[in-house]
């Protein structure tokens, strides 16, 4: 169903959002925001969590109806009542999380996405058309492979191909590279950039990564707290200037310098073997020692057993064999052991792994300490006042943005959930810290804060095991670097001596 007139039949077109205001009750999510995306340009939309980026693009895509403001597509004002209208106008969106059906092939996923899937699909004909379509595209994906068998980079390419296959010519990308390796990200964005330059496509990309903005975007719009904070040509801006516009007067946490030397062995893994959910061996007899005052980074492409290894250490998965020792004592992830050794865990996807969404921020912050004074009187009666007081203190200290300590934690943005977990896990004197992709999908301010906390814990003498898919993060923080591939450690060395090409080769299994 097409409302108004269609944009030009081929080629790139622009989208302008004029004087957009969006209210959710009393809360002003967008305040008179303007966004001008020129036809055939690569436009970046920057902003911290909660700045209104998602709200703005959801208004453009018809998921939300702006309280005030107009949307102009290809030079004509359009009333976009729902995502279907947006699709009919040639607007498409690629989400941070994948929307493909894992059990189906790439070809099936592409055909499935169409509005007019026939009752009986003529597969030979469709395959021929798909191959012809792919031949015109800069990306190549294996059409007959199952989505569950292809890498994250290929999945993201599929998502983008799906939009192109559906003849969308204005793509909104919501943090499209958060699941990709830097090389994959550069490849995907480079190809999109080529299409933009050829005038086939217009792109609006939500991102946190200045590197990508500098390398690929023509123009940038920066939002701060629901208001337009700045806009301009990327060529005339520096990352520093953009960061300042993005975070306003807010000071980024300064990372303390690396001080002190590694001490005694604190965390020892001996021949740990663990299975994945399907029962296949995911971690193959790995051994590792992390000393006090040292950060050991585990690098590797997602899906090489890192998650299962962390789950064993977090008590979320039982090891098939092998043992873990902390300060020489056997460790089985019990509460008593975690307490005795002052262990802290910062798992990936904190809402899924470390929080109860329906419980309040204050409750979630108290998970480690609720059974002790002052939270519990006599070891059994909950002292509600103590929960609130402690939460208020930590909310201020860790800059957690929440309406009240009683707000359910699921109402918070990703960065603030991670801050709440940080507040809980790093409250005491940490002796062993295990962190897995702690900055995944977070904004500048949150990343700076988390990196500073991890470094501070190390300097205080904690043994830190940092598992990350972000190589830059590992190079910045870790003292020693280990590469995990197919469930084994295939490389180990001091980070200061690490050669990126060698590390990269081991990550790829060569």
């Amino acid at each position, binding site marked *: 169903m097409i409302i108004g007139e269609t944009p030009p039949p081929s080629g790139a077109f622009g989208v302008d959002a004029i004087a957009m205001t969006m209210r959710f009750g009393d809360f002003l999510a967008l305040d008179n925001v303007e966004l001008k995306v020129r036809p055939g340009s690569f436009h970046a939309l920057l902003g911290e969590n909660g700045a209104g980026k998602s709200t703005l693009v959801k208004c453009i895509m018809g998921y939300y109806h702006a309280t005030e403001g107009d949307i102009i597509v290809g030079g004509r004002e359009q009333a976009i009542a729902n995502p279907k209208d947006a699709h009919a106008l040639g607007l498409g969106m690629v989400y941070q999380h994948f929307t493909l059906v894992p059990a189906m092939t790439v070809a099936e996923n592409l055909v499935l996405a169409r509005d007019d899937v026939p009752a009986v699909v003529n597969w030979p004909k469709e395959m021929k058309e798909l191959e012809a379509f792919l031949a015109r595209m800069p990306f190549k994906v294996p059409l007959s492979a199952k989505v569950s068998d292809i890498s994250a980079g290929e999945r993201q390419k599929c998502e983008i191909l799906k939009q192109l296959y559906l003849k969308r010519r204005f793509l909104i990308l919501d943090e499209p590279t958060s699941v990709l390796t830097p090389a994959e990200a550069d490849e995907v964005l480079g190809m999109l950039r080529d299409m933009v330059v050829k005038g086939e496509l217009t792109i609006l990309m939500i991102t946190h990564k200045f590197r990508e903005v500098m390398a690929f975007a023509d123009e940038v719009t920066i939002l701060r707290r629901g208001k337009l904070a700045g806009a301009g040509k990327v060529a005339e801006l520096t990352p520093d200037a953009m960061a300042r516009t993005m975070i306003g007067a807010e000071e980024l946490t300064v990372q303390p310098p690396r001080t002190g030397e590694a001490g005694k062995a604190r965390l020892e893994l001996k021949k740990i073997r663990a299975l994945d959910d399907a029962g296949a061996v995911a971690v193959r007899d790995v051994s590792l020692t992390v000393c006090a005052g040292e950060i050991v980074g585990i690098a590797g492409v997602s899906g090489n057993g890192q998650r299962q290894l962390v789950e064993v250490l977090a008590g979320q998965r039982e090891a098939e064999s092998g043992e873990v020792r902390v300060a020489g004592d056997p460790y089985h992830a019990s509460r008593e052991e975690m307490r005795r050794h002052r262990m802290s865990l910062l798992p990936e996807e904190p809402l899924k792994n470390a929080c*109860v969404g329906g419980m309040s921020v204050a409750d979630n912050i108290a*998970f480690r300490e609720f059974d002790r004074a002052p939270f519990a009187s006599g070891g059994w009666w909950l002292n509600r006042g103590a929960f609130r007081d402690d939460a208020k203190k930590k909310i201020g200290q860790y800059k957690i943005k929440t309406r009240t300590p009683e707000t359910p934690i699921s109402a918070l943005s990703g960065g603030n959930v991670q801050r709440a977990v940080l507040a809980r896990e790093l409250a005491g004197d940490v002796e062993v810290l295990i962190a897995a992709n702690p900055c995944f999908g977070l904004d500048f301010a949150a990343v700076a804060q988390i990196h500073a906390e991890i470094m501070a814990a190390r300097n205080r003498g904690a043994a830190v095991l940092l598992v990350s898919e972000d190589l830059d993060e590992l190079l910045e923080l870790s003292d020693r670097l280990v590469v995990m591939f197919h469930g084994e450690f295939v490389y180990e060395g001091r980070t200061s001596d690490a050669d990126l090409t060698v590390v990269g080769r081991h990550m790829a299994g060569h």
Partner: protein
Amino acid sequence: MTSEAADSAEAAGAIAPAADPGFLQRYGGTIEYVLIPGAALVGALAVFGIFVMLFGKNPLDLYFYMYQGAFGTWFSWQNTLTRAAPLILTALCTALPAQLGMVIIGGEGALLIGALSATSIALALQGMPPLVVQIAMVIAGVVGGGLWIMLSGALRQYRGVNETISSLLLVYIGLAILNHLVEGAMRDPASLNKPSTREIGAANMIGSIPGTDVHWGLVFGLIAAIASYILIYHTVFGFAARVAGGNIRAAKIVGLGVSKLILTVCFLAGGAAGLAGMVEVAAVQGRTNANLAAGYGFTGILVAFLARQNPLAIIPVAILLGGISASGGLLQRRLGLPDASVLVLQGIIFVFVLASDALYGRIGFLKGKS
């Protein structure tokens, strides 16, 4: 709160406790928990009215007699409360494990095993002072029912068996054990038509609350419901249970012993239903026989769902459902409806309550803003 206030609160950084969130926002959730089940109940009554019209009866008469039979007189109130007592206890058998994210529907089985245990101990302790026998019966009922549901929890925790299915199947096993013993080893030779155990003796019966015909089981139920509420919302144990129920991965990462929590909660849940069985023996039947399988365990599931698994809300809901079942007799006498028609109503209520679950958070004017 104005938008400027929102801005400045956000600008101030973390929290804005001073801002008045307004009545609806503060109580919207609570209103929802009353309004939606209430509407489901009204909807179910309306549909039941249509059902009754098909029998050629006036639905308004129906509602009048239902009210009369449930709450119209002191007599009907006592009847209602007597029926509510076991419902409170069996509802806890579903509501407590629900805090841990488990769906246990085998309260009936725990009730039967609790009754059997209580009867056995009473028969074994014949001649002891009544108070000793009664206390022993309470303990036996709780332990018997508790172990029964704990079995379901253990099967889930150590063998990966779905607790809903296993608890339901355990009902039939419990019934079979009861029948086996009542018709065999424990049969009173004098019970000819209806195989039963011997009587526990009039002296050992727990009797009624003074001045009423309502037995002490109601007090047991009220204490159990209030204690459950305190346990879940005000104690360390309840907090740990809610963490594990809300997200098992979060519970594990902070080192909570999930197995112990599951087994303990299942024991307490089964214990409540077992206590209901003990009450039915010690206050109503005086012996164990197949009469005990009167469906209190199953109606308890309905009560728990209607109360949204909240132990305190179970009390009024159990009284309401007790009233509906108490009115069955009057409907039969005055309207000539089949005795089972209140079961039809219960079924309709259950369907409405389950369907109404989809409405939470979707009622426009109750939406809190965040």
